[in-house]
C-alpha cells in the first residue's frame, strides 16, 4: 500500500530537482537540499516545542529520535532483511527457497578461491599493519620530530583507497626487462639483475601485492592509537621497573605490552573488519581478475555485472556473518578489561 503512495511521489519530483548539468545547477541542488532539510526539521522542532507536560515530553522524545530511527529501519534493517531472503532464493534471487547460493559458495572452485583470498587478507593485514604501527610508535616515541614522523605514516589514512591504489599501481608498473623501467619495484629488480615481474597478474603473488596497499593504509591508524596508549602508561610503573633494573626487552614484554593490550585488541579487530570489507583496492588495481577477487568485490561483480543477485546477496550475508565473531570477541575483551 505504501509503495503505491511512494510511486505517486516518484512521479512528482521534477527533473531539475534530481539532476543538474551545470555547475550552478549542481550547487543549487545542494543548497536546495540543505534548505529543505532545515525547513523540515524546523517544522518538526516547532511541533515538538508545542507539546507540554509529561505526555507531551514523551512525544517530544519520539520526534527527536524518530527521524534517525525511521531512516535506519527503512534504509538499513528492511533492506538487510530483504537481502537475507534474496540469498535463499536461487542464483537470480527471485526463485523459490533454496540453499543453492550457499552451496555454490563453498563448492565452486572460483568462489572457494575468493574465500581463500579473503582469509589471507583478514589474517595478514591486521597483524602486519598493527606490527608495523607498533614498532614505529615505539621507535619514534619521544624522539625528535615525532609529530612529523607520525604524519608521514598517518597521511595514507586521509586519502582514498582509489588514490592509494593508483599510487601503488605505479610502483608495480611492468615493462619488459630489456626496456627502461618506470615502476620502482621492477626497476629495483632489474638493477639487482632479476627478471621484471607482472606483479598484478602473476598469481598468487598479486594478492600479496594488493595486501601491501592495505597494510600501507592501515599502519598509520594502528600507530596513532597505539602511540596514544603507550603514552598513557603511568610514570610510576616505569620508574619502579627501572629502579628494579628491569631490562629494556623485559620492560616491553611485561609492562608495555600488557598495558596496551586493550588498545591492541581494538586496533586489530577494527582493521580486521575493515579488511573483510575491502573492495576499492581490488576493484581499482585488478578488478578481481587474475585470481585476486575477495568477498566484497565478488559481491559487487555477481550483483551488478553477472546479474546473479541471489549469489551476490549470499556473499553480502557471508560478510555480515563473518563480521559478527570479530565484534563479539572485541566486546568480550572490553568486558574483561573493564
Amino acid at each position, binding site marked *: 500500500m505504501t509503495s503505491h503512495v511512494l510511486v505517486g511521489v516518484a512521479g512528482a519530483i521534477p527533473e531539475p530537482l534530481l539532476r543538474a548539468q551545470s555547475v550552478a545547477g549542481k550547487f543549487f541542488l545542494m543548497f536546495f537540499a540543505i534548505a529543505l532539510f532545515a525547513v523540515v526539521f524546523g517544522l518538526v*522542532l516547532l511541533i515538538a516545542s508545542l507539546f507540554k507536560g509529561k505526555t507531551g515530553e514523551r512525544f517530544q522524545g*519520539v520526534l527527536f*529520535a524518530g527521524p*534517525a530511527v525511521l531512516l535506519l529501519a527503512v*534504509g538499513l534493517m528492511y533492506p538487510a532483511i530483504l537481502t537475507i531472503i534474496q540469498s535463499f532464493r536461487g542464483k537470480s534471487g527471485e526463485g523459490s527457497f533454496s540453499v543453492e547460493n550457499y552451496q555454490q559458495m563453498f563448492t565452486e572452485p572460483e568462489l572457494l578461491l575468493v574465500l581463500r583470498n579473503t582469509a589471507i587478507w583478514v589474517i595478514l593485514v591486521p597483524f602486519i599493519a598493527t606490527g608495523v604501527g607498533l614498532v614505529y610508535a615505539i621507535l619514534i616515541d619521544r624522539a625528535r620530530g615525532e609529530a612529523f614522523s607520525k604524519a608521514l605514516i598517518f597521511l595514507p589514512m586521509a586519502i582514498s583507497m582509489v588514490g592509494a591504489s593508483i599510487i601503488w599501481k605505479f610502483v608495480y608498473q611492468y615493462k619488459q626487462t630489456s626496456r627502461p623501467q618506470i615502476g620502482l619495484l621492477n626497476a629495483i629488480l632489474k638493477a639487482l639483475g632479476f627478471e621484471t615481474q607482472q606483479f598484478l597478474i602473476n598469481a598468487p603473488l598479486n594478492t600479496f601485492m594488493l595486501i601491501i596497499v592495505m597494510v600501507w593504509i592501515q599502519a598509520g591508524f594502528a600507530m596513532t592509537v597505539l602511540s596514544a596508549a603507550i603514552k598513557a602508561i603511568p610514570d610510576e610503573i616505569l620508574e619502579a621497573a627501572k629502579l628494579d633494573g628491569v631490562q629494556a626487552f623485559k620492560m*616491553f614484554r611485561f609492562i608495555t605490552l600488557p598495558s596496551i593490550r586493550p588498545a591492541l585488541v581494538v586496533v586489530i579487530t577494527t582493521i580486521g573488519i575493515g579488511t573483510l570489507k575491502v573492495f576499492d583496492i581490488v576493484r581499482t588495481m585488478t578488478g578481481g581478475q587474475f585470481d585476486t577477487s575477495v568477498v566484497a568485490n565478488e559481491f559487487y561483480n555477481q550483483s551488478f555485472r553477472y546479474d546473479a543477485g541471489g549469489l551476490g546477496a549470499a556473499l553480502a550475508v557471508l560478510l555480515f556473518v563473518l563480521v559478527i565473531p570479530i565484534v563479539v570477541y572485541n566486546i568480550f575483551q572490553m568486558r574483561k578489561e573493564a
Partner: protein
Amino acid sequence: MSTLEPIAMPEKVSSEMEHTTGAPEKKGRRKKSAAGDAARAISSPWASVAAIVIAVLWTIPTIGLLVTSFREQRAINTSGWWTSFSDPGAYTLENYRQALAPGSSASLSQYFINTIVITIPAVLLPLFLASLAAYAFAWMPFPGRDALFVAVFALQIVPLQVALIPLLDIYVSRLGIGASYWSVWLSHTIFALPLAVFLIHNFMRELPAELMEAARVDGAGHVTIFFRILLPLLTPALAAFGIFQFLWVWNDLLVSLVFLGGTPDVAPITVRVAELSGSRGSAWYLLSAGAFISMIVPVAVFLALQRYFVRGLLAGGLKG
C-alpha cells in the same frame, strides 16, 4: 579512513586526533615512556635507522606518483620518475591543466564538483540527525527508549553491502531518485547514523545532568536546551565525527558506484579515477594528476580540522 567504520570510543577518537598533530604538546618535563626507553636501550642508532627505513618505505610511493604528475607525458612512459631529478627544468603543469580543463573528454572538473556537492550534505545531515537522536536517547524519557538505543548500537555491525541492492531498488522504483544526488545523500546519512548516534550519545552522557535540570527549572524546553546549551558543548564531538564522515564520503567508491554509476552528471571523482585506471591504465599523466586532485582536499581538511579539533578538546575538556 575510508575503510574504517571505527567501533572506537570518543576518547579513542580524541587521543588519536591529539597525537597526530603533536602540536599542543603539554609543557613541563618530558615524560619517559617504557617503550621509548626500550628502543633507546636496545641501541639508539639502530632504532633510528629502522624508523627512517619505515618512514621512507611509507613515503616513496606517494612521492613517486607526485613527481610523475609534474612530468611530461612522453617522459613518464620512457623513463623512471627518479631519473627526472637530473633535469629539473622539464617539470610541467600540463597534466593538471588537462585534467582540470573544462570541456575536454579527459576533464575531471565536473566529477570534482560532484564530489563536493555530494560530500557537504552527506556530512551535515547525519551530524544533525544523530545529534537530535542522541539527545533523545540520552536525556528524554520515552517508551522503548533503551531497546531502541541498543538496536541502533547493534546496527553498527551491519556491513553496508547487505543493504545496497534492496536500497537501490527502493530509490529507483519507489522513490524515483535513482542516479541522483538524493540517493547518495540519503545512503551516506543512513550508513553513518549508527556510529554517529553512538559516539555523540556517549559524549552527551558525560555532560552533567545538573546543566539540563537547571535549564528545565528556568522553564527551557528541550528544543531550547538542545540548541542553546547542548550544541555548543558538543562541538568537539561533532568535529570528531565530522572529520570521519567527511573523509569517508569524500573517499567513498562503493556507495557512489552502486547508486550513481559513472555519468558526469553525478558521479564523484573517485568513481571516475577508478574507471580511468581500468580503461586507460597506461595514461599515467592523467591518472597521476587525477589521483592528486582527488587527494588534495581530504589531506588539507584533515590537517586543518585536526588543529581545530585539538583546540576544542583542550578547551572543552573531554573526559577530564
